[in-house]
């Protein structure tokens, strides 16, 4: 049995008295592929925000590789090996795709605090940025400003930035949302190429892709975990059917 990458214990978060995440407890093993399911407003993205540190939980503990990170700032968590993508694209529109990747690379580099190292002369960074873009098939567009690229290309850039950081735990928030059939296939291949030792937690509504990717599924409803199990267990569970089919 391998060690736990991510452990949540009784995590709660309310917005102005309205609970968004209630007493969530879950554990993800190292190298596991986990899918988070749930209807809109179930608290999936809020849960990601809490794990990442974009939001601070009201109570409960979040552990990353056994270390309590509940009160740690987001950037400190990134340095412990956590990366995420966002459902709503929040990138740097004026900058080129390569520059976007460079910002992701620099975030983990010591030279991010170096005011005398000229960015244009950092061939090492631009080389790695190109390699990261190549991985998602965007190398041709490296010099193009983000604002002049398509939505699908921006989604792939999101993934490229997260992967460029070589995370140990990767949170993917709807990586397939809004993509065409072809783009979906590309991203699916990309997801399959993520190294086995990387732990991946994914929110995704495209069940064909998501269910083939994930080994274990957690279903959230009104901020609570209602079921956790394998694909077969989830599909057979009467509570899931109730949530999704209202039956």
């Amino acid at each position: 049995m391998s060690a736990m990458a991510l452990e949540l214990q009784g995590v709660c978060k309310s917005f102005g008295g309205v609970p968004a995440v209630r007493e969530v407890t879950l554990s993800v093993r190292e190298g596991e592929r986990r899918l988070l399911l749930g209807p809109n407003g179930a608290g999936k993205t809020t849960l990601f925000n809490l794990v990442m540190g974009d939001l601070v939980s009201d109570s409960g503990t979040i552990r990353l590789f056994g270390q309590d990170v509940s009160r740690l700032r987001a950037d400190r968590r990134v340095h412990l090996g956590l990366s995420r993508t966002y459902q709503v694209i929040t990138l740097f529109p004026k900058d080129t795709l390569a520059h976007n990747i460079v910002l992701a690379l620099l975030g983990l580099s010591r030279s991010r605090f170096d005011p005398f190292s000229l960015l244009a002369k950092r061939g090492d960074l631009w080389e790695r940025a190109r390699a990261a873009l190549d991985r998602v098939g965007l190398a041709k567009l490296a010099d193009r400003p983000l604002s002049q690229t398509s939505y699908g290309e921006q989604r792939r850039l999101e993934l490229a930035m997260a992967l460029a950081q070589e995370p140990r735990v990767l949170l993917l928030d709807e990586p397939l949302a809004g993509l065409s059939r072809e783009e979906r296939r590309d991203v699916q291949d990309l997801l399959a190429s993520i190294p086995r030792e990387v732990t991946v937690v994914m929110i995704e509504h495209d069940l064909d892709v998501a269910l083939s990717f994930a080994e274990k599924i957690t279903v959230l409803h009104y901020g609570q975990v209602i079921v956790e199990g394998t694909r077969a267990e989830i599909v057979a569970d009467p509570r899931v059917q109730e949530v999704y089919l209202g039956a």
Partner: protein
Amino acid sequence: MKRNSVYSGLRPPSVAGKAGSSIVRAAIAVLLLVPAFLPFDYYVNIATQILIAAIFASSLNLLVGYGGLISLGHAGFLGTSAYVLAWLATRGELSHLWASLGALGVTTVVAGLFGVLSLRATGLGFVMITLALGQILWGVAYRWVSLTGGDNGLSGFSRPHPLGIDLSSPGSFYLFTLVVFVLAFLFVSVFVHSTFGAGLQGVRDQPRRMQALGWDVWGIRFVTFVVAGFWGAVAGVLYADYNQFVSPHVLALTNSAEVLLMVIAGGAGTVLGPIVGAAVVVLLKNVVSAYITRWVMLLGFVFVLIVLYMPEGLVPGVERLRRRTVRRGAEA
């Protein structure tokens, strides 16, 4: 534009291109010749004032243009530095060098303290805290008469004699200021094009995302705040040496607003913008006021025109017009 580099085109556009550096060299040559060609001391002094204002505006531009943090208290750093220098040189009876170093040191520490206080907020909150802190310094200078001389200010110190060179003449002090200005210009150029500068601009555009990419957003803003305070202090040392007199006026809110206008009018977030903005404001203030009594009205009028026709500032605005005419020329 084709570059013979392996990473050709992958690099972000840089002002340090070949054409850019030759323009900079030509500009420095012209600036060096200013005292020889300007017939009267009066004009040489105005050129000196422009350079001091340019250093001051460039320091604020790090916060406003590159950090997205609008400060209305930046005169506090110029003023603190000028006051500390004046106090140490007169009542402290220190040599000019030590008084200057003391001014830079004290002001940098003040910038660190103010940074901790004002960076609790961003946006409008940041504006208000910097405004309040600036007003506190003004109040101290105005009311703590035993320390600051109150309304009368501090005087009775002379210009420095670095390496035995006499700087009392306008021409020599201009060249001294020019040396400091070139150092400040080089520093700012490298700073904003560095890996740290890339982070600063990323934090300006998407702070939350930068945090989630591993950047210490607060730390980046704090370091920039202190660096901006330091260069504001450098401008303050030059200001005190130039005037050989300091009064509460230097800490007034109008001074903070004026330097902010220099940055915005010239073009926030560009290296050259604040320098152009400083030149425009100082020229309007000095030259035009000789002919028109109500020069402040004219200053206001000029700013309205800039905001209407070049809201991004003079330097990016002129660049935009130039590109448009080049494109039209190509189409014709």
